[in-house]
Every structure is written in C-alpha cells, then in structure tokens.
C-alpha cells in the first residue's frame, strides 16, 4: 500500500486543475454552456477520448489509469462536466477499436467522439432481456445486403440518434450464441420506427424500435458474421463498470451531505436528526468501501493480477448505493421530497425523486441484480449453474 503521489502525477494534477480553473465560466452551474465545444476542448487537452489514437480523432495518450483517475477526481472537485458519455462513446468506440475494420474505425470513431453522431444500442428485445442471447430480430441475406425485421426495447436515445449498433440473428440454424451478428444501422433507413417508451419518471428515457425489412449492407457487420455475441460481450463489461462508477456515487453523496446540512425543518438542519444522520453515515461507510474497492481494482489492472469478486460486485453495489442515496434524500426532505416537476417549493429540480425512480431502472438494466448475483456466485464463488429443466 502506497498512495503517495509521484511528482509526475502531482504535476499532472496541477495541470488538470489549472485547465479547469481557467475555464470556470464555460461550465457555470455544473453543465457545459456549449456541449460540443466543451467536448472538443476536452479532447484537445486529453481529458476526453484520452487513449483513443489521434488517427481516429482521439488524444492519443498511452493508457494511464492513474492519470484517468486524477482527471476524474479533479473534475468532481471542480464540479465540472465530464466529456460526453453516450453509448456511442462508451460502448461502440471501444468495440470498434477492438474488432472493427480500419474503414469502420476511420469513418465512425472521430465524429462519435466529437459528439457529432449520437448512437443508440439495440440489444434487448421484448423476449430477450436477461436471456439476451435468445434475441430474435432477424437479418436475412438479400444480395449484398441484409433485410432486418423484428423489434428492440430499452433503446435509450433512439429518438435522438443518427445511428444504432445492434445485435441481429444472421444464422438462424446456428446455436443460440453463435448465430448473432453485430451490425451498424443508420436510423433514417426506411422501415425503422421509433416509439418512445414512457417510464415511471414521467419521461421517455427509453424507446422501442421496430424494424420492417430494413436494408443494410453486409459490410455493416462489425467483428465478423456470427461473432456478434462475443463482440457485444467485450463491451458489456464497460457498461457494467460505468453503471457502478464509485466516483459518481461519491459525488452524489457529497450533494446529499450538502443538502442535509443546508435544508431545515422546524428551523433545524436535517442532519441534526439522529436517525437521518445515522442513515447517512451508514451509506458513507459503504460508499467509502466501494471507493477503495475501486482503487484496488485500478492497482490490480496495473499489475495484471486477478481480482475476482472485487470486480464482479461493482454494478450490483454501485447501483444499489445510488438508489439508497436518493431514498435517503427523499426521506430527509419529507413532504418536500414528494414534490416533482416544478413549483416554488421544489428542491434540486426534483432530481432526487427522478433518481430514485430512474436508478431502480438501472438496478434492473445492464444485467439485473439477480443476474449479477448469479455471476458473483458462479464466477466468483464457483457455485454450480441452475440445471436446465428437462424438455417435456
């Protein structure tokens, strides 16, 4: 254990801090004034798309997990917005880098990083949720093209996206996991219909997408025909890491502490209530533990040592803690906590209520809590899989 910072890292931290201090006006209130301009500035400085090669529109730095962490910490400390983080940047780009053709990399990565192309992810289907490999959207060969028919669900940002990366069944006679391909589809292709999926938050954070004989060239396949399941799995792990990010959880904890210190009831700060205070301390302890668990994972990645369970629990714990933070905020606010939409008494734009509902969705999405527990017990503890029922 040695958490002291080398002079090189201390200098890097000062550099990030200086960058943010000089641009404070660009993100007053925590959101970028000009989102695309901010994104371009971050890429130029190496604080977004840091390790993506220059040839593809990134900054081109060597992977350095410590510098990445310093960037994350300094952005949180300054209340500065991070670079864009849609599914194109966090999932498609790593996939293309790993298995895309040179042409695909050059064509798609740069504009995606700069925020010029918004992507959506077409994985889940009405009949393929936790059992994702059971997906039925089919792509039938037609000359040099595929004709795609079927439907996808839980497609966030599909209404705003220009492009979709999508899993479709190209080899209907192959085994379940081996008949799937990963394809890239322009959303304005005829035959695609996007319907917003309204959720309990009142917003439509997700969509349903319907395909009727949607024609895409076979060259739109990424990573080879029939390899889609393996291509998708290389990037699902990025999603699970993102969903349990301890830095984001810590930032929310800090916001909750601030709320409980400043908000009053009967003239007394919420933090003065011993029950709420104790709940806050319980969450702080668990969040600190996950933060240090994150440091342990970073070190293990640097030294290439296996970590097993420490990595498998991140999504389960991170999403649960976010949800509980929102629950505590609502409880501490009491009747104020039930306000939503707008109105003079609304606190924090109703964000805690929204998080309380939306974060429950994240506990379910990206691999449900129960699927996570299967993974932890099977891969982490070596327990046997549930036997398949005999076919009647």
């Amino acid at each position: 254990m040695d958490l002291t910072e080398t002079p090189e890292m201390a200098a890097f931290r000062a550099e990030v801090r200086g960058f943010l201090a000089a641009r404070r006006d660009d993100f007053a209130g925590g959101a970028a004034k000009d989102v695309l301009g901010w994104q371009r500035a971050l890429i130029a400085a190496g604080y977004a798309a840091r390790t993506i090669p220059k040839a593809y529109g990134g900054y081109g730095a060597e992977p350095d997990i410590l510098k990445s962490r310093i960037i994350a910490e300094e952005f949180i400390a300054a209340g500065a917005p991070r670079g864009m983080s849609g599914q194109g940047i966090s999932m498609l780009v790593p996939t293309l880098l790993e298995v895309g053709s040179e042409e695909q990399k050059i064509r798609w990565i740069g504009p995606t990083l700069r925020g010029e192309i918004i992507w959506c992810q077409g994985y889940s289907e009405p009949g393929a949720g936790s059992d994702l490999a059971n997906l039925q959207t089919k792509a039938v060969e037609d000359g040099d093209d595929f004709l795609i028919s079927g439907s996808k669900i839980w497609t966030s940002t599909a209404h705003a996206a220009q492009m979709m990366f999508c899993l479709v069944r190209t080899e209907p006679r192959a085994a379940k996991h081996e008949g799937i391909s990963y394809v890239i589809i322009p959303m304005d292709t005829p035959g695609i219909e996007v319907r917003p999926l309204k959720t309990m938050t009142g917003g439509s954070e997700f969509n349903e997408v319907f395909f009727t004989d949607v024609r895409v060239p076979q060259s739109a396949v990424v990573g080879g025909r029939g390899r889609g399941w393996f291509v998708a799995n290389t990037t699902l792990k990025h999603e699970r890491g993102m969903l349990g990010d301890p830095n984001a959880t810590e930032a929310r904890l800090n916001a909750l502490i601030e709320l409980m210190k400043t908000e009053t009831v009967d003239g007394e700060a919420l933090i003065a209530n011993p029950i709420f205070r104790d709940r806050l301390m319980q969450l702080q302890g668990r969040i600190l533990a996950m933060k240090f668990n994150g440091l342990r994972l970073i070190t293990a990645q640097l030294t290439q040592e296996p970590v097993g369970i420490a990595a498998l629990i991140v999504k389960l714990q991170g999403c649960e803690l976010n949800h509980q933070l929102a629950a505590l905020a609502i409880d501490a606010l009491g009747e104020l906590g039930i306000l939503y939409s707008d109105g003079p008494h609304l606190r924090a734009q109703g964000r805690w209520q929204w998080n309380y509902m939306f974060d429950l969705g994240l506990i379910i999405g990206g691999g449900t809590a129960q699927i996570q527990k299967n993974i932890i017990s099977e891969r982490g503890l070596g327990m046997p899989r549930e036997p398949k029922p005999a076919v009647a």
Partner: protein
Amino acid sequence: MDFALTQDQRMMQESLVRTLADASPLDRVRRFADDRGDTGADVWRALAEFGLAGVVIPEEHGGLGLTLLDAALASEALGAAVAPVPFMGAVLAPIALMRGGSAAQQAQWLPKLARGEITAAVAISESVAGARDGAGVTATNGKLNGKALFVPGGVAAGLLIVADTAGELHLTPGEALDSSGRTLMPGIDETRRLAELTFDDTPAEPLCGGPELLAALRDAAWVLIAADSLGAGQAMLEKAVAYAKERRQFDRVIGSFQAVKHMCAEMAAELEPCRSLVWYAAYAFDNAPPGVSGEASLMAAHAKALTSEVGRFVARTATEVHGGMGITDLLGLHFWFKRLGLNRQLLGGPERVREIAARLQGLSV
C-alpha cells in the same frame, strides 16, 4: 499509487494461516472454550514464535517493527481461525508505550512483550463505548481507583494500560493487581476472555499523550476488530459455499438453487468491499501525520461500523445456508457467529461508532 498488499504481507498472512491450522485448530479452540482454566498458553507461544507478540514493536526492542496494516492482516487470520489469543493488547500496549511511554518504560516492557513472556491488556472501554454500572477509573497521586469493564485479555495480562475518566492513560504492572482485582466476565464468545478490573489504590505510572493517545488506541483497536470480523466473516462465507456445494436435497446440491446461491453472492458482495476499507483504514493510521488525524479516525470508525453490520448479516446468513447443522455445537459454526457478535459490540456498537464518525466531520455536535 499502489492499493495492494506487498508480496511480504501476503506471504506473512499465508504462513500465519498455516501456523494457526497447526497451533489452533477447531478442536483446540473448543477445549479453550470449554475450560476456563485453560490459558491457551501453547497457542500464544506458537504465535509469539511466529513474531505476533511483537508485530508492531520496533526491532531494537526485539519486535518485527511492522505497521498496523500488518497487524490487521494478522488479526484477519486470527478471526478466520477464531483463535483464542490476547492479540489486541499485544498491538495496542506497544502503540501506547511507543507514543506515550518514556524511554525507560519502553526498555522495561517492550522486549518482554515481544518475547511473549507477558501479555498486555488495554482498558479503554468506558472512554470509547461508554461507562456502565458505575464503571470508571480515577487517578490521583500515582494510584488508580475504580472499575474498568470489558477488558480483553485482562484476566491474565502482565501489563495493563488503563484510561482514566479524564482521558489520560496509565501503565500498571500486572503484579500490582492480583487475582482478587480481576474477574472474568463470561460472555457469548468463549474464545475471548473479557475481564472486569477493580482498582483499589493500585499503583500506576502516567503515560503522556492524553486524549490524543486515547484516540489513537481507539482507532487502532477499531481497525483490529474490523479485520478480525472480516476474517471471521470470510471464513463463514467459505464454509457456507463449501457446504452448499456438497449438501444434496431434491436430487441436487443446494448450491445450484438460486435461493441459496444468492445468499452466498450477497455475503460476498457485502464482505469484499470491507477488505479494501480495512486496508485503507490501517494505512491511514500508519501514515497519519502526528497529532489527531480526523481521516484516520473516520476511516477506523467506518471500518468498525461496516464490518459490524456486514458481520451480523454474514453470521446469520451463513448459518442459514447450513440449515439445521448450522446451529449445532457439533459443526462449531457458532464460534464464528459469536466472535462476530462480540466484535460488533466491543468498543462501541455500530450506531455509537457512526455517531462518532459524524462528529469527526462536524456533522453532529
């Protein structure tokens, strides 16, 4: 940045696990628990030979000169083995002597402790967990008066470190307090012997440091207890998983039922983060600047409180995974269950400790 154990630390821990398997297997623990006359001297001798008696004592005084993190790793192994040894005093008393003792006191006591000739006990329960039943020790003119409760290893210790009600610490040689002043407090965890100490004009020497030293002893104790709970909890999880892979019902091993698997996954998901928190709390203690360190105290408090909560959950859940066997004496799982039960309350239950954590951050007056 390096958030990992060193090769030496891993080897030390693995080798301690092997030593404990020889010196303190479950049947040895059981004999100790069943017979209050059994002092466990053979177990402590084996561990003293290993170096545990002087783990944090500087090399010039015959110890290993290691850190609280190393001691916490040892504590984790001791918890996993439910070992019946007075390890807390062996770490806390040297810290008290090194930070608050004179050169003469250090030279007099540290080598004896390092060799395992005598054991030490630290009586700080009233200051940390609160005074019960009128307990509390006062010091006047080099004499102690009053009672100290819940002193781990206090029945047999050859050196006592005692906090008075003003938060000052005192050193009392074991011979100054005969057996009439030391009463066993029989508790649920028979692998730990807690004592009630009664001082009656008992001679004592003052240590320097006052409340700052007391806070350091409290923090170190919390980290050691947290590590012990981590080890005990991990042992219970491993036993539950092993049992679930072996026990068959409805023509299947019960570990293939999701109801059972998920109980094990939940235990693992709660325990694993505790490991990182315990490491960090020990590291923060070892690297704290001199004086009161809010960071080290806060981390120690959270480590103690979180392992208490997780410990209770794991103790109960692992027992349930074992079904009826879990509650039998034959299986002996209850030794870990009780160890976790004791660790939760010792030197403050989680509610009290979290309130201290809030106070340390100015969130409570």
